[in-house]
């Protein structure tokens, strides 16, 4: 039966196009310094926050980016968006004046699985910590 089934492979348009053109099925990783640091009083500054400084009031800048910018993409950053473990914060009298999650490490969650993530303490080699994730391919892809 397979002899008669298999020629129909070539009549499936996607298969035909894929065989003829060769499609990429890559995994995507995005390592970026997005400078998402507009928190606290810094949001009052149009220079730092633009006209939408208060659109995400109550959220950190990283949360806003995660929910607004990256929500509709297949990219995911496994790190905490609220914690200050890898953020740069400047406090004045206990009030966070400036800071936030600056560095992002995103991966395509449909094709990759994050086994572990790690944030360096930073401050010794660079003014930024480094982010590391251990990725493997999604089993069912």
């Amino acid at each position, binding site marked *: 039966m397979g002899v008669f089934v298999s020629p129909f492979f070539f009549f499936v348009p*996607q298969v035909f196009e894929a065989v003829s053109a060769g499609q990429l099925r*890559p995994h995507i990783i995005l*390592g970026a*310094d997005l400078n998402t*640091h507009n928190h606290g009083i810094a949001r009052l500054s149009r*220079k730092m926050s*633009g006209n939408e400084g208060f659109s995400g009031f109550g959220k950190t800048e990283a949360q806003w980016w995660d929910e607004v910018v990256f929500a509709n993409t297949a990219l995911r950053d496994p790190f905490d968006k609220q914690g200050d473990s890898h953020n740069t914060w400047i406090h004045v009298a206990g009030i966070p004046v400036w800071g936030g999650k600056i560095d992002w490490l995103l991966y395509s969650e449909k094709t990759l699985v994050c086994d572990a993530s790690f944030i360096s303490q930073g401050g010794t080699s660079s003014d930024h910590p480094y982010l*590391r994730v251990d990725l493997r391919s999604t089993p*069912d892809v």
Partner: protein
Amino acid sequence: MTWNVERGYRLGSLISELVAELPDLVFLQEVDCSCDRSFRNDVAGELALALGDFHVAFATEKDGVNGGGGNGGTSPRGAPANAVAAFAVAAPAAAAAAAAAAVDSTALAAPSSSFSQLSDRGTLVDSSNTEGLNHGVPADDASVIAANDSKEVDDESCEKRIECPDPKRAATPGEGPCVEPSEKLFETSSFTSSASSAPHVRLTHQGGVEGLAVLSRYPIRGVRALQLPNTYKASPSNGSHDKDLSSNGDTSRDEASNNGSSSGSSSSSGSAGGKARVALRVEVATPVSDASLLCSCRVCRKEEADKELVSYLFGIRKCALPIPRPFPISFTSSPSCQLGLVVGYSVHLDAFAGRTARVHQLQPVLEDAAITVIGLIDSVKIRQSLRKLCKPALFSRAHLTDMLLYFLIACIYSSALVRTFGCICLAIFFFRATGV
């Protein structure tokens, strides 16, 4: 792994931390090369060397960084914000470093030292068009691929330099001598020996470059620089640039200016201020997925793999390949291994631009990633359709079509058989009746 290395001021500490992590793929931002402020180190090259024969891809964000004053300035020839350059060094880092070490101190007096140093590491391929040239270029042959995204911009700026009346007016503070177009400078791969004889080679250090880099343990199959919208707006009078105060109108205007400069030189001067924001896109063949096994199969026993593919396609051996594994469509279509491919981006957005401007700045990267994801979804659909075809339901359309075909062929065969049997019987009857 991603890291903003702060221009490599503390290179030794960077190396020690990086080596301790033993990463496979590193995305770096704020990477200096031959800048005074970072002791003229090739930061990416040094890190790649320390990690052990890592492959390097680099994209220039800011050229002519003298680096004497903290954040560094721009060279007298300015920093054409759209002069995007991206190149990959596929040669082993040790060889590259050895080649770089062979460059004597006069190398620092050469223009575009990063390019010149890199040119000593292998064949330098100069191109004036990034689009498609650096994409998927095999980099196994120890080559250095360089590309300028906007030839017009470079030509214009170089033209200005040629028109410089006095080539020796470098005495003016902050200005350097008039130089030839950078395209010609790229050709001076052996500048260390020809620096004294070449009349147009710059005689003072004009600064290094700052940009993005990707270090990879695995071969970099392609490298490309994506132009990002600039959040700086130009002052038409003196060319100085104020940072965008992030009104939407300003951002869109900057984007329009930026887009225009990509295709023409008319507005290039409008963004020749700070950094030319780019995203470094690399394609790395990694064993991150099971598909790499197929890749290795293809390398070591290509014929068998092709037979496997053909047998799978023609149904001789149904479902021989596990369907959940990526379907090896690229076996016959691409010379390079597309399976297990990792497309990585290294991005650095402006720090003090508005949120809207930064979102717009990241937009080309997200679009490029989305295109890739769409291709991924399509391939998933393909696999799903293949799975259905490979395991048809009992009364599915394909199954009924097969049954119909079987029935028709059986009818044909049976009718032919009956006809043949009848003919044979008639012949026997005829021969017996006639007594032959």
